[in-house]
């Protein structure tokens, strides 16, 4: 059995990351789980949260914010299909705060219930991201 897993993070627009890593912590919609080599095959949806990628055992994780999507794990291969993914290190507080502000305004401006719900979701996600940054 391999002692690493082939990890891939793809967004609809591009392949964001591909590497051999030790383990990955995935925020599944039914609870977080960590994928190590030899993990049982699983397909799961994700909630918007931070994915931790450990390149080697005990190393500091690469953190990435993922806005929804799903994971496909099989045969020491883990693929995350993210709707939007941002490296936490590439994120700066101010642009994020701005986006939170915009989202809050969207919630205010929403006309229909559906729109409001959608705007509210976005707002919550961004807020979560903001708190992850601290």
């Amino acid at each position, binding site marked *: 059995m391999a002692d690493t897993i082939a990890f*891939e993070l*793809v*967004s*609809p*627009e*591009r*392949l964001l990351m591909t590497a051999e890593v030790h383990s990955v912590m995935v925020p*599944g*919609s*039914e609870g977080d789980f960590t994928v190590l080599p030899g993990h*049982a*095959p*699983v*397909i*799961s*949806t994700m909630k918007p949260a931070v994915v931790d990628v450990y390149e080697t055992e005990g190393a500091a994780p690469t953190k990435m914010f993922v806005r929804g999507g*799903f994971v*496909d794990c*099989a*045969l020491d291969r883990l*693929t995350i*299909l993210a*709707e*939007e993914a941002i490296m936490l290190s590439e994120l700066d507080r101010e642009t994020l705060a701005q986006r939170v502000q915009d989202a809050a305004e969207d919630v205010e401006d929403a006309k229909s219930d559906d729109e409001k719900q959608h705007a509210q979701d976005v707002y919550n996600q961004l807020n979560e991201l903001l708190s992850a940054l601290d």
Partner: protein
Amino acid sequence: MPSLKDLRNRIDSVKSTQKITRAMQMVAASKLRRAQEAVEAARPYAERMETVLGSLAGAMMDQPDAPKLLVGTGKDETHLIVVATAERGLCGAFNSSIARGAMRKIDQLQAEGKTVKVLCVGTKGATQLQRAYGHLMLETVELSGTGRISFAEAQPIAEQILSMFDAGEFDVCTLFYNRFKSVISQIVTELQLVPAQLPEIPEGEQALEAGLQGAVYDYEPDEETILRDLLPRNLSVQVLRALLENAASEQGARMSAMDNATRNAGDLIDSLTLNYNRTRQAVITTELIEIISGAEAL
């Protein structure tokens, strides 16, 4: 017989046209490279999506409560045709070939007695379809025209298709776009969006399944919920892919069209220059004859 001055003016005007077409060709070439990169970059996601969807849907297909997006409404009465074209012209037969493909499909469906609705993406196709099928047209979605197609651009289109489907406004949805084969060849492609067309599982995939050694995927949450989440997303991805292919095709078509135009202008300049020189010599000869015969008369 045009005068020398007329000829000179024409040569000048053709020359400046050539400059424009050459510039457009070069712009298209550089945009094409970027568009092609975007197509390449979007490929992994779509491929993974297909694999997951394929393995999921296989199991769900036979169940009575399978999502409608997958198995369809069970009817085949109302068709929605989505025609994806460019925002701009001057790209050869790019727009008209898509429009023609769509028209053929519409005619065929109407001959079969089905109801057809048309949704246009990109204004160029809309203007071409307007005359014959204006009464079928629901709406025209304009693209930003900046050349960069992002997921954010595909999503509203997909959402619109979805909300129409949920409202029961159509049974089958087909998307028309140009698949990018090469700079000189773009293929009008008909892609059925609803009910979702599942990829044939290729040989390699079966090997992969076998490689699982009988292990079965765990689904978290259950298959049905995932599939319900996945199908709309798959629709957006398909739309995005079509738009990206279309963008690359557009630039490719524009590049070869402008290449042709530049060459044509060159030919025209050559023949005009020849004509100009001949006329100039004829004028000189005539003048000489006049002088000589004037001198002889003395």
